[in-house]
């Protein structure tokens, strides 16, 4: 998530000298002079139009009783009935509840985890140990969800290591991978395992930007390690924390799609259905294209409103915002 942070737009860099546009030259003449640039732009532009913008238009199926045999043109228009059907569909309500519950857990537990880890690693004196630990904790970020879930299955599944260790104690067998009651905790733990290390990068960046002199004067004034943490480090990274938190709030309707899709068969839809997986099951597999597209569209609109709103909020609170 934080990968998007701050990268959307940056102001013109100072070393760029504005080239005064020569008067009297038409737009077309200027464009012709830059024709190579259009050659560079064209393939990418084509990609974005075809694969990103045409699907946007494809959302019209949300207003249709779409049938693949009839196509977009022939399928009957049904106005807003998909949208009204959606809000009285118990499965949609359930998916929404699950989504918000998983998001809440992740904000409470998975969000602060990288901050704590970054602070811990930062407090290590040995750079070598720090680097080794970093290489270890960054690794799971690059492992795909299929593999991550397979690994977890071997540890916490019915025939996994955990049960083997519990057996002599007389507890179990537990199959945490297939238990609907503990599922929310399980996926939160998985997210922490996979992303906690990667998440530290941005906080590290913020920590290194704190002036060492602040620590020095705090130490001279008699502040111990904890008070320096509380009065120097945390205030120094608080703006980054607030910004990331607000942005995370903007994406509450998105929780690990692949992660949940992979594990839903084991625990059932009631415990694992989220908005995205609902769209997939009801639409692509169930053939109820109109309703599924309506759910997807509503999710997209709410998500955009939340992100834009969150960005406003970040700016109002004195942060930079992302765009």
């Amino acid at each position: 998530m934080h990968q998007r942070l701050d990268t959307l737009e940056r102001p013109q860099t100072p070393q760029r000298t504005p080239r005064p546009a020569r008067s009297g030259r038409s737009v077309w003449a200027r464009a012709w002079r830059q024709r190579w640039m259009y050659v560079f732009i064209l393939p990418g532009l084509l990609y974005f139009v075809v694969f990103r913008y045409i699907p946007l238009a494809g959302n019209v199926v949300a207003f249709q009783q779409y049938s693949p045999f009839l196509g977009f043109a022939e399928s009957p228009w049904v106005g807003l009935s998909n949208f009204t059907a959606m809000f009285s569909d118990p499965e949609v309500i359930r998916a929404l509840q699950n989504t918000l519950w998983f998001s809440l857990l992740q904000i409470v537990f998975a969000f602060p985890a990288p901050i704590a880890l970054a602070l811990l690693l930062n407090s290590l004196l040995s750079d070598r140990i720090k680097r080794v630990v970093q290489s270890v904790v960054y690794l799971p970020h690059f492992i795909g969800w299929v593999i991550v879930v397979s690994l977890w299955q071997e540890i916490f599944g019915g025939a996994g290591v955990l049960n083997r260790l519990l057996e002599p104690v007389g507890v179990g067998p537990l199959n945490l991978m297939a238990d609907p009651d503990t599922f929310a905790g399980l996926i939160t733990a998985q997210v922490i395992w996979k992303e906690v290390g990667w998440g530290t990068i941005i906080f590290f960046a913020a920590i290194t930007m704190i002036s060492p002199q602040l620590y020095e004067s705090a130490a001279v004034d008699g502040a111990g390690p904890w008070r320096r943490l509380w009065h120097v480090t945390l205030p120094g990274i608080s703006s980054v924390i607030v910004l990331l938190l607000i942005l995370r709030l903007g994406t509450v309707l998105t929780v690990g799609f692949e992660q949940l899709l992979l594990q839903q068969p084991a625990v059932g839809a009631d415990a694992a259905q989220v908005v995205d997986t609902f769209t997939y099951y009801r639409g692509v597999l169930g053939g109820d294209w109109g309703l599924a597209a309506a759910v997807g569209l509503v999710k997209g609109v709410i998500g955009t409103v939340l992100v834009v709103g969150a960005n406003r909020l970040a700016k109002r609170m004195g942060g930079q915002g992302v765009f």
Partner: protein
Amino acid sequence: MAVVGTAPARPARPAWQEPPRRITSIVKGLVIAAITLVMLYPFVYVIAISFSAADAARSGDTLLIPAEFSLAAYRTIFAGDVVTRALLVSAGVTLVGTLLSVVMTVTLAYGLTRTREVPGSKFVLYLVLFTMLFGAGIIPNYLLVKELGLLDTYASLILPGAVSAFNLVVVRNFFMNLPQELFDSARIDGASEFQILWRIVVPLSKAVIAVIALFYGVAYWNDFFNAMIYLNDSEKWPIQLVLQQYVLQGSPLDQMAVSGQVEAAPKTIQMAVVVVATVPILLVYPFLQRFFTKGVLTGAIKG
């Protein structure tokens, strides 16, 4: 920029900092050791199982090292063609996809660096940025791939995600920070934009290009969702989808090769598939690691 990673080497402990107390060091050491163990143990265990004899794996003696070393699982998966073919598909899709993605990202990023001089390019930039804000959703994307006739083609694994707006922004920011005088003088010397891109920009941007190539490559290798929804033909499946079917769903490994066999694949074989699907990531990981901090933070920090 140039904030992270390039911080001046500090002495291990600044003069003002008190020497660490022993109890603190011990607690920290234990916590760090625990974290490392939790992160690495699943990999160790799965590798150990994959190299165990089937009986030894079932008995539960293998926890850290194979109780009874055996290469049988690997012999089995490489003797059949399901896993071998899936690995080849994944490798092919990853190579072709990464090449295409990198070329398109670099050219588009360069094309969007001079929004003031190239009429219309600012509009294109906004088009790209908007896609980071609002995506179309699963259903319209699926219908598009279907309408384009890409179902059951390898192209459906590559084209839908060919250019990432995030990577594009990273590369463009990098280009914008290159010294513009270089380009100006090259232009005065009569170099075409293509020559400038190929001879000046690309060589100066090797690091960031390496970063996005690795990001794209890892994404293509790890992708299973596109394959799952777009490919019905199991002969075209990449390794991640094979893994999902045989390990997570417990389908028999030789379902297609030997029809009629219904027994689920033994644990050692499943784990061997997990290992071969993970190894390429582990192989590029050292390179990834060298570059990614830079990649994530290039342009991520203003100023």
